[in-house]
């Protein structure tokens, strides 16, 4: 959904839409009160539809061409392991960072009640850290895609490995412009 007040130009355009909607409601109400009510409901529904239909700026841009910052001979791998993962097979000789996103439900995210999910993720991270000597293990954000983005800001990975289901794989593929595969 597009924010109608994202920029001055969009706010000005939104004002024009509101003026047109108000004019239609007034015209309908002058003919008949209930027609005015119907026009108001339709105008409001149309406004919501228009805002939902409008593309977010930059969403359709092509993925950027990436230049790896990894020195020759080194391979950096970011592993995404959802809470509950007991073990992962990481490539040998690679610099590995394992991220355990504290996956939370929609209501939990909205209310900020993510302490329980974070505790689950920390427990999984502790287990993986004990089983993967040499690899760094961290707890990530409640959204797996965001957790990966956070990790990539400080860890210039060459590829992302996902120790989860196809849905998680799809989520991460949609968010990052790196090779993403399933473990």
């Amino acid at each position, binding site marked *: 959904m597009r924010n109608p007040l994202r920029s001055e130009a969009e706010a000005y355009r939104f*004002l024009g839409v*509101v003026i047109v909607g108000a004019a239609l409601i*007034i015209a309908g109400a002058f003919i008949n009160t209930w027609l005015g009510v119907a026009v108001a409901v339709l105008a409001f529904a149309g406004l919501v539809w228009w805002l939902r239909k409008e593309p977010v700026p930059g969403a359709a841009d092509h993925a950027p061409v990436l230049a790896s910052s990894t020195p020759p001979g080194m391979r950096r791998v970011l592993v995404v392991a959802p809470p509950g993962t007991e073990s992962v097979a990481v490539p040998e000789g690679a610099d590995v960072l394992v991220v355990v996103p504290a996956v939370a439900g929609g209501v939990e995210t909205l209310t900020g009640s993510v302490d329980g999910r974070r505790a689950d993720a920390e427990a999984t991270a502790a287990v993986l850290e004990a089983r993967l000597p040499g690899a760094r293990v961290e707890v990530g954000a409640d959204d797996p895609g965001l957790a990966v983005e956070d990790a990539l800001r400080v860890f210039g990975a060459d590829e992302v490995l996902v120790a989860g289901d196809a849905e998680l794989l799809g989520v991460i593929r949609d968010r990052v412009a790196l090779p993403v595969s399933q473990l």
Partner: protein
Amino acid sequence: MTTYSHVEPVGHGEHHGPPEPHYSSRILPATLGMYLFIASEIMLFGSFFTAYFFVRIVNGVAWPTPPYHLPVFVATVNTFILMTSSATMHWATTSIKRGNVWGMRAGLLLTFLMGLAFLIAQLYEYLRVGFNTSDGAFPTIFFCLTGLHSCHVFVGLAILAFMTIRAFRGHFSAEHHHGVEIGGIYWHFVDVMWIVVFTTVYVL
């Protein structure tokens, strides 16, 4: 999509200065602030419109209650003034984006003057309208809704005054005009709210 062209791994390569600010959230702070602002405004205006709904629709209070009359003509003229001020605000922003500093200055000055004209006309209307908040539910809701909007216009005028002064001091350019952009968003929002107030209070 996220770009990684500037990613420098920690402990590898040279890095000067502090790292880029990073917000581990789904939403940028500036955007979140705007959403919170809009939400608070919707709740604020919504509470007054709820009172309007109960007074006029649920309780069936005549609108306007006889023998009072709403100054529709003055409000209509005011509406045109305010809508024109939005156009000049947009002109100011468009001008500075193209590097036209004098266009921006003229646009901001005109916007400020029209906003001031709106507010003065609104206050004059209050003085000669012939009823007060103690005269019943209709006058109370009328003053609350239009007064709340006038308060927003007053705040907008204060913002516009600062923007105009900064514009004449040369603080804005084609590359740096965030202050004009933000002020413009607020001014258009105030105008959107006036359309809603004008339609419900004066016309319907």
